[in-house]
């Protein structure tokens, strides 16, 4: 009946529009039993929309979905769940005030009749699911107290708890460390053994090759390539994704940084988990802070940005000792911070591009406190051009933009800030596609040529190696060493990141 008889689930000629935007354009795709399929593409290519259609969260405008050859119409996520399709989104859908067990079993609690929850049965069943994934967690711990990586695993456990036949993972590894990624990989393999079908949506191409058997590439809402992964090289996939060849992701430095007095100096700073930390950042340089996730890098960013105050040690800006009591204080010294979670701590999603971008420069643009729409529009649109922002109107809500473009709006905000001296970035390209990444990197390089200094915190090793003049590596709240650009290799940075005895090298 179908050309792929073993397809567990299939979509035919699916189209999904949002207003005038065609997010998914006439896509036909079949998922095979016992196989993992990678779905790759730039941000905004329509991957998440297509997956949401498969998972019943969105209804297609055209086209049909077939489960085991039978046409099905999902009216809600619940319908799709019943048909054995579970999805794990990049944005967590967990409840911080509920425990691990309660979150995993949410919506499918075992009862003792009269819908009274049977807690011991609930615990046993959740324990089984966690054992399948091979992670051990305290079932009674509130999810809000877990690290992002563990929360991500709880989210995956929640999806697996319904024993789905199709598991869709939408960028599941963005907050996972190497160890957790291995746990997940192992789990995907066991699902394949059980004849389940796994879809893996990702930007990280190296992972795609580790996880998947088949690959589908989307670009501008269309499925542009599909087939066994073995037939593709990493470069070929990138070319399919962007529709053009990207030769140089990391921009070259025109001239080496001059030896100049540092703009920012931290000396023997202790704050919470961070102990005795010293570093300095000179104008025109990019200083990287690397390490595994959660070694205190974010705290350093927060100290520099004025969100947290050091308990001991000193902070010097342009040679003078200062106390940065608040982000406004830091901004007054020309220090801007781009937090890691743009959705929750950076952008105001229901507001327009203009309002989001101009919010930190209101006093400069609007003299006398009255809004002057024209100068504002001019400034924002010039920044938008500079960033290659893809948008329809400047009055468009930021929530309508793709992840990479949202990140660019956040950057744009700081470009409008008068006298920007130091830009602190915390995982700036998480969830940002390769095309937008290259643009962001080029912009960072350009900023350094204007004497802005950049403190780049990243868990992406390649990013640090590609951009930073000097990489500090942190482990358990301390700097275990630093590596100059010329000498930096993956092995050297990893050695410092994973080995606490590397101190002093």
């Amino acid at each position, binding site marked *: 009946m179908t050309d792929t008889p073993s397809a567990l689930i299939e979509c035919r000629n699916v189209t999904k529009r949002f207003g005038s935007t065609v997010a998914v354009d006439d896509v036909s795709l079949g998922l095979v039993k016992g196989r993992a399929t990678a779905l790759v593409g730039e941000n905004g290519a329509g991957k998440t929309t297509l997956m949401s259609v498969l998972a019943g969260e969105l209804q297609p405008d055209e086209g049909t979905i077939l489960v085991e050859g039978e046409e099905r119409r999902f009216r809600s996520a619940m319908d799709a769940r019943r048909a054995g399709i579970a999805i794990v989104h990049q944005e967590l859908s*967990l409840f911080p005030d509920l425990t691990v067990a309660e979150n995993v079993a949410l919506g499918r609690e075992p009862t003792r009749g009269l819908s009274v929850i049977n807690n011991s049965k609930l615990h046993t069943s959740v324990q089984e699911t966690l054992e399948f994934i091979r992670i051990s967690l305290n079932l009674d711990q509130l999810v809000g107290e877990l690290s992002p990586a563990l929360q991500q695993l709880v989210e995956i456990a929640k999806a697996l708890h319904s024993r789905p036949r199709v598991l869709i993972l939408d960028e599941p590894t963005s907050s996972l460390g190497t160890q957790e990624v291995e746990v997940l990989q192992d789990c995907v393999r066991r699902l394949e053994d059980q004849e389940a079908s796994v879809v893996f949506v990702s930007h990280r191409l190296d992972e795609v090759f580790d996880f998947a058997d088949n690959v589908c590439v989307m670009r501008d809402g269309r499925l542009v390539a599909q087939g066994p992964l073995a037939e593709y090289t990493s470069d070929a996939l990138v070319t399919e994704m962007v529709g053009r060849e990207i030769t140089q992701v990391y921009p070259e430095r025109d001239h080496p940084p001059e030896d100049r007095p540092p703009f920012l100096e931290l000396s023997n700073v202790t704050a919470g988990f961070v102990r005795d930390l010293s570093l300095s950042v000179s104008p025109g340089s990019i200083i990287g802070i690397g390490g595994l996730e959660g070694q205190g890098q974010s705290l350093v960013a927060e100290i520099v940005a004025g969100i947290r105050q050091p308990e001991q040690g000193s902070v010097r800006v342009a040679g003078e000792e200062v106390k940065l009591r608040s982000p406004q204080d830091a901004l007054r010294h020309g220090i801007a911070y781009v937090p890691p979670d743009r959705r929750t701590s950076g952008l105001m999603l229901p507001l327009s591009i203009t309002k989001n971008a101009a919010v930190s420069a209101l006093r400069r643009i609007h003299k006398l406190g009255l809004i002057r729409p024209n100068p504002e529009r001019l400034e924002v649109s010039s920044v938008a051009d500079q960033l290659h922002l893809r948008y329809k109107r400047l009055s468009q809500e930021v929530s309508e933009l793709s992840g990479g473009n949202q990140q660019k709006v956040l950057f744009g905000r700081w470009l409008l800030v008068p006298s920007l001296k130091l830009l602190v970035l915390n995982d700036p390209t998480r969830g940002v596609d390769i095309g937008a990444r290259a643009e962001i990197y080029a912009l960072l390089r350009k900023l350094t040529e204007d004497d802005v200094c950049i403190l780049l915190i990243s868990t992406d090793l390649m990013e640090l190696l590609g951009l930073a003049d000097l990489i500090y590596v942190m482990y358990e709240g301390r700097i275990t060493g630093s590596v100059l650009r010329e000498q930096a290799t993956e092995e050297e940075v990893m050695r410092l990141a994973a080995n606490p005895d590397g101190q002093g090298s």
Partner: protein
Amino acid sequence: MSGSTLHNLRATVPIWAFTALLILVAALLSPPFRTLTNVTALLSLAAPLIIVATGQAVAILMAGIDLSVGSVMSLATALAASYATFGGGALVNTILILVVGAAIGTLNGLGVIAGVHPLIMTLSTYIAVRGLALFVLPSPGGEVSGGLLQFVTLQVGVVPVFFIVAVAMAVVVWYATAESTWGRKLYAVGSNASNAEKSGINRKAVILVGFIVSGLLASVAGLALVSRLYSGDPLAGDPYTLNSITAVVLGGVALTGGRGSIIGVLSGALLLSSIGDVLNMFGVSSAYQFIATGLTLIVALYVYNVGVFRRDRSAISALLNKGGVG
């Protein structure tokens, strides 16, 4: 008992301690306060508030609010006081009152599901139902069915039967919110409706049931009011709209939804009822009673927020110790 239930219960300890302390101190210092007559009066004062606040807490836990409860209570007393007009005995009259309460709750629920903000939806029904109450019983008075009156004024020793009913209802609703699948869904919708839907929860059903519970409990609270008034009053329920919200907040339920426990609300309602009574016993004028209540609310909110702040901080350090924040 599940983990989050215990967690929510632990958070009600300060409010219970404070309520107990207030009553203990008043009982020690004021001979009139510890008379049995006053105990009966205090408990019968608390009964309607406990019931209506329990319903209000359900609405607030799902990140809604129910402003209509005051009018629903008034309408219940008006219906009870005009049973002769509608015919039927005490039982038929009681059923009518409960059905009307549930129906108004249904209307609220449907409106909110259709996209009207709960504040606006229940404000509209609050106003309209007040009109309905005035229509049924234009001025205070009327005659309550003998059978109903006999029941609502029953006492077990010094304890009015409606106080027992009130506590029983609060406990049952607490158990349902804390330990049933419906309750789990209620908290989930209250803390994040879109995530709840993504988890396969039928948001609309949860909201509808929540408002029905709130409306139903408001009409029961109206009956509790009848036990004190012995008649009907088309405006008697009015203060309960804001008082029920006050009791819920005093009880530690977050107005943003998804956090708190009905057990705390029980204490909040007791505290709110006792403040007035205690100050009365010491001869403090009613003007100061309102001021005292307002200040208590502010202090309670401060205590809860400091508590929340502490928890967040400990959560942050827990993250750091595990190497969480990236």
